[in-house]
């Protein structure tokens, strides 16, 4: 878990599976409006891919995807993206998350609602993926604390 696995089977299976899981995670996030899935499930799938790479390749490989320091920061950034999209409708005179009123040129209200929900889903996915990867890192602990 901490260094690269010695088993060739584990490394090759992770190398083959991780890109497929990440692509499917993006599909789940971006089709969350009208099919099963959404931000949370896509984010967990993305975190599963990150954790798979960390299990097989150790932190030295996994830090190229998301570093230990970036986990809590990206989690906060995802929550802030959600809050900012909610507050955009709030500050322009509507109710919270009522995006039809936000004056963005070139969008009909229904289109705007659809696009803003997509942004919210992306924020949720970023937060969930980053926080779950950070939980894995914290569970495993650092190199020098045992």
């Amino acid at each position: 878990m901490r260094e690269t696995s010695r088993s060739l089977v584990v490394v090759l299976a992770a190398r083959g599976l991780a890109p497929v899981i990440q692509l499917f995670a993006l599909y789940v996030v971006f089709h969350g409006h009208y099919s099963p899935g959404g931000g949370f499930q896509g984010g967990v799938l993305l975190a599963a891919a990150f954790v798979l790479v960390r299990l097989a390749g150790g932190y030295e490989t996994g830090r190229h995807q998301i570093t230990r320091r970036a986990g809590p920061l990206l989690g906060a950034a995802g929550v802030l993206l959600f809050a900012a999209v909610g507050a955009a409708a709030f500050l322009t005179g509507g109710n919270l998350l009522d995006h039809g009123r936000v004056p963005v040129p070139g969008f009909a209200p229904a289109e705007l609602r659809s696009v803003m929900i997509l942004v919210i889903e992306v924020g949720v996915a970023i937060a969930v993926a980053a926080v779950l990867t950070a939980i894995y890192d914290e569970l495993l602990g650092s190199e020098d604390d045992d």
Partner: protein
Amino acid sequence: MTWPIELVLYVVLVLTALASLEVKNLLAASVTLTAFSFVCALLMLSVGAVDVAFTEAVVGAGLVGVFYIVAIFRTTRRSAD
């Protein structure tokens, strides 16, 4: 006419739950708990809750199993009692 499949799934659900409670090896317990989660997801799928089933399969059978195994890796592998 899916009730025979659901009956089999309910039986497997109870069996995996009892196995994860009774087994003394914690690694085996976490693996059977993952199997429990997966059967639970299939049952939710059979009653039409596709979104819940998806979440259960991804979280319960995917990521939480890894977290259990990491926790066992950080402690000891067999239960004390």
